């Protein structure tokens, strides 16, 4: 059962990735990946470790230049953009290993998001915005603390607040739940749903199946840099290619055998 | 056949340069510290060799090892006592510190020895290979420089200490977890850097005039070689040193010796922009 709340119609195509590829030296990290992202969706991006998920996010946000292929965002070809341009266009992302500005306060960290990508008119405006985002994620009490003093779950929420302050249309969440315990993960899920309810389109990289299945309407599966499956959660989960990628070809073959032998 | 001569000169120079740079490169690669004193260490070695030759009649080639060991001790103590306290601090701090220490050493040498150029004159004769003339002083210096570099390479690869040094260079934290005493490795490496500098200084005294004015020059060459050849490896320093020697020799031949130095810096700047990992591809610490 999908927990996402969608407002209105399926929405325009926000992001169109077409045959995107990236190799580093001899290693092909991302190979011919194509997909579209519509406004209002929550799309899960899964795959075994090293599948190229973070590299894909890096390509979309301009951290690396693509070896070939294109990324079109709201009609503009943004394949060769720099990260700050992606941010200003409304393509925000969080980092797997959180990246705060350690010597700044929690508030200042979020102000950075609203002042630059969020295009706040003034410092005062940026601070007001930042405070509201901190309230949204539940960190308002810690506003004056140095960012380096936060616990991991709080840092993850700070990362979310910062990316929200950037006024994104598309938010790429990279393993927001890594290192969190069960109750913290539930809180994170609620927060993500609330963000989607505000009209932000989300791609979420996640390895916890329960999270992905409960959040996404659609799932993309990456393996060795290639998109091996895409579709609604149920069909993806039962896709033999996906099973093989995660559990190995022997297991997949046995599953097939057992399925064939059943009466 | 002029080019043969220029090439030979370049290679002889290059062997010396490689030896000069390898200690600097090792310290940078392992400690992530740029030792601004490196040029001063070289000149210190040169001065000691000169005065031993002048007053005691000892050949610099013979003095090479004792001088090197003396400088090893000096380097070890400086690192352990002074630099190690700030080893974890940002680049600006460590660089300014070694810069400051260099100022002290430079001043001390100026007062003790004055800046008058000193030159050891051995006059061992010349050899002539197919029209290329080489003075035996330089050939001997080159051979010893290469030998020393080779011995360092063997030490790094085969001895326990050497392998500990390489381990720290690759991953300091992992090395510490394996039980390697990183602080000791730092001190030994810095000492080794000073060791090589001192030994080279003794060799340099036979080939170039020794004066405090050129400490910066040698330091600059060490930088350039590190950028060309990459950090922390002996082969890198060798490639870089030989490359620089040959480049300077040809540049000096075509455009005059004073521009040869400029060429080195320009090449370094270009490389820093285009390929900071150096020709050998090993990225240094930033």
């Amino acid at each position, binding site marked *: 059962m999908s927990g996402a709340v969608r407002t209105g119609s399926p929405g325009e195509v926000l992001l169109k990735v077409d045959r995107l590829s990236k190799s580093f030296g001899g290693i092909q990290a991302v190979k011919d990946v194509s997909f579209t992202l519509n406004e209002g969706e929550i799309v899960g991006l899964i795959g075994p470790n090293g599948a190229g998920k973070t590299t894909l996010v890096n390509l979309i946000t301009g951290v690396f230049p693509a070896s070939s292929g294109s990324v079109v965002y709201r009609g503009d070809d943004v394949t060769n953009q720099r990260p700050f341009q992606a941010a200003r266009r409304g393509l925000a992302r969080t980092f797997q290993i959180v990246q705060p500005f350690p010597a700044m306060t929690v508030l200042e960290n979020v102000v950075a998001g609203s002042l630059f990508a969020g295009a706040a008119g003034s410092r005062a405006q940026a601070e007001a915005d930042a405070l509201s985002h901190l309230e949204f994620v539940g960190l308002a009490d810690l506003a004056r603390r140095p960012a380096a003093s936060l616990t991991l779950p709080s840092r993850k929420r700070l990362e979310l607040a910062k990316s929200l302050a950037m006024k994104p249309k598309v938010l790429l969440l990279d393993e927001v739940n890594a290192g969190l315990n069960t109750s913290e993960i539930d809180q994170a899920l609620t927060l993500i749903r609330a963000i989607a309810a505000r009209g932000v389109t989300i791609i979420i990289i996640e390895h916890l199946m329960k999270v992905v299945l409960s959040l996404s309407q659609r799932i993309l599966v990456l393996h060795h840099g290639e998109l091996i499956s895409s579709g609604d959660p149920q069909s993806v989960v039962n896709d033999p290619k996906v099973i093989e990628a995660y559990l190995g070809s022997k297991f997949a073959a046995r599953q097939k055998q057992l399925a064939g032998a059943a009466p | 056949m002029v080019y043969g001569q220029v090439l030979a000169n370049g290679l002889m120079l290059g062997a010396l340069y490689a030896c000069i740079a390898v200690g600097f490169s090792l310290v940078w690669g392992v400690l992530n510290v740029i030792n601004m004193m490196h040029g001063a260490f070289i000149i210190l070695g040169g001065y000691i060799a000169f005065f031993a030759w002048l007053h005691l009649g000892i050949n610099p080639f013979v003095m090479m090892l004792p001088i090197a060991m003396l400088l090893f001790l000096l380097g070890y103590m400086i690192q352990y006592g002074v630099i190690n306290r700030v080893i974890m601090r940002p*680049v600006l701090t460590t660089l*300014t510190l070694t810069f400051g220490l260099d100022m002290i050493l*430079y001043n001390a040498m100026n007062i003790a020895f004055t800046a008058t150029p000193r030159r050891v004159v051995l006059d061992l004769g010349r050899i002539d290979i197919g029209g290329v003339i080489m003075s035996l002083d330089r050939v001997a210096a080159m051979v010893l420089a290469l030998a020393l570099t080779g011995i360092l390479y063997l030490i790094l690869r085969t001895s326990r200490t050497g392998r500990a040094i390489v381990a720290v260079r690759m991953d300091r934290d992992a090395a510490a977890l394996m039980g390697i005493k990183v602080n000791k490795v730092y001190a030994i490496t810095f000492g080794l850097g000073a060791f090589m500098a001192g030994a080279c200084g003794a060799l340099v005294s036979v080939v170039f005039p020794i004066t405090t004015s050129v400490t910066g020059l040698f330091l600059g060459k060490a930088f350039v070689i590190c950028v060309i050849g990459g950090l922390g490896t002996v082969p890198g320093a060798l490639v870089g040193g030989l490359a620089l020697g040959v480049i300077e020799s040809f540049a000096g031949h075509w455009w005059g010796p004073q521009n040869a130095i400029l060429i080195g*810096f320009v090449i370094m700047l270009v490389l820093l922009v285009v390929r900071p990992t150096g020709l050998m591809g090993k990225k240094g610490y930033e």
Partner: protein
Amino acid sequence: MKTRLPYILFALWVLALASTPWVASNYIVKIATFLAMYGAIALSWNFIGGFTGYPSFATAAFVGLGSYSGALLQNAGVSGALLPLAWLGGAAVVALFAAIIGLIILRMKGHYFAIGSIAIVEVLSQLASSWSSLTGGGEGLNVKFLAGGPDFIGRVFLYTMIVIMLLAFVATVLVDKGKLGFGLRCIQQNEDAADMVGIDTTRYKIYAFVLSAVFCGAVGAAYSSWVAYISPTDSFSILLTLKAPVMVLLGGPGTVFGPVVGSALFVLMEETIWAKFLDYNQGVLGLVIVVLIFFLPGGLLRLRWRKGSA
């Protein structure tokens, strides 16, 4: 610091410097001129080294280039009453140079950037030495003396340096309080995150680099008019380039008043202690550096606040 106290103290300091021609000897006036000069240099370095965290050793390149540009302009006729134009011209040349070089060198970080910046000093120094037809080479360049008695000349250059320092100070305050300063601090703490948050890091770094250069260029140009003779080794002095970060480290990098405090202390120390030991000039500087780095990790201003983390 919400209080106005530091600003008031600074204003008093500037007034004190400006009043020296009327209340003290020419020697004191000269010291005051150096205080203003090094104040401007320290404030300049603070933009790239303090706010942005890029360890620049390019200061001597900017001062030296300013000296030569100003001197050449002056010798070409921009002199007498037009002298300030020569200084502006020097500053403009240096600013342009910094913008162009910045595009290349600011791509590097840490040690590589530091070395690149020193290399710039060396390359310019070598160029000045070799291009004798233009610069007089190693022999140096003579600049036309400004007409007037020693009192007049002393005053002209005192006030010139004070004006340059004030301009640098105003720029510092504006940057510190504004979007640029905030962005530079973000870049210093985490350049990748700064990029991700929408900061055009290349543009901001170049702004900081040009700011770190332009006032130095003005100082260099004015200085060449003052001493009327420049040479490559003095203009592109490695000692000068080392002093810039040391002064700011002494006072507190990344703060508004740190460079002022640090440079003032440094110049006064230099005049009182080392001037006595001319032969030990570099050695004492080295010793000061060692002591500074050991005992004042954040600089003097941070010491007072004692935030607890280095």
